[in-house]
């Protein structure tokens, strides 16, 4: 499947782009993360510590073990600091 993958804040800076299309057969977010980590050092660096990251699936916060079936947009970012 083809996913829109978005990066925000220091995840975006570390990876060096705000969004990209990713072709994947990963079943869960964790599977997708494993694939991305294997790509290049900058991805490995961005995804080094999952406890420092949050993920949203189709603009809803989700867990890293959530399935990707039916999902179109995945976003990775650090804990939010609004307000």
């Amino acid at each position: 499947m083809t996913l829109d993958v978005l990066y925000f804040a220091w995840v975006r800076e570390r990876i060096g782009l705000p969004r990209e299309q990713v072709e994947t057969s990963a079943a869960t977010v964790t599977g997708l993360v494993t694939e991305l980590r294997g790509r290049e050092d900058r991805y490995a660096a961005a995804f080094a510590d999952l406890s420092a990251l949050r993920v949203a699936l189709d603009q809803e916060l989700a867990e890293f073990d959530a399935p990707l079936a039916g999902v179109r947009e995945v976003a990775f970012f650090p804990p939010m600091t609004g307000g």
Partner: protein
Amino acid sequence: MSVRVQSEPFDFAAEAAGFAAAQAGAGAVVTFTGIVRDTEGGLERMEIEHYPGMTERALSDMAAQAVARWSLTGALVIHRHGVLAPGEMIMMVATAAPHRADAFAAAEFLMDYLKSRAPFWKKEVTAKGTGWVAARDEDEAALDRW
């Protein structure tokens, strides 16, 4: 119930007064305003990034939860993104209710969720360099009370 995400400054006083005037049946109006604070000295600007689409969705969902949970006559959330100078207002929340306990609780609920569940990220630019603001443990812990 109204939610706005914008890069332009907003007029806190005018927003608060307009909100209060529109609340039929309200006996209590609470507002909260967040201001860019130069905590360390030397802050040149704050840059606020957000996730267009998800931001509006998250804020609307929070406001709907507040309206469902407390007896409110109205709720307003305004949050800026982009570049802000020290002293500028980042965001505001306003709630109105027949009784003050509801207005206070809903405003605190909205603030707690906004801090940790709305997709905003703050970056501070100082004379010494730039850095992303770290989430505070107490902000995450504050959600437990709701």
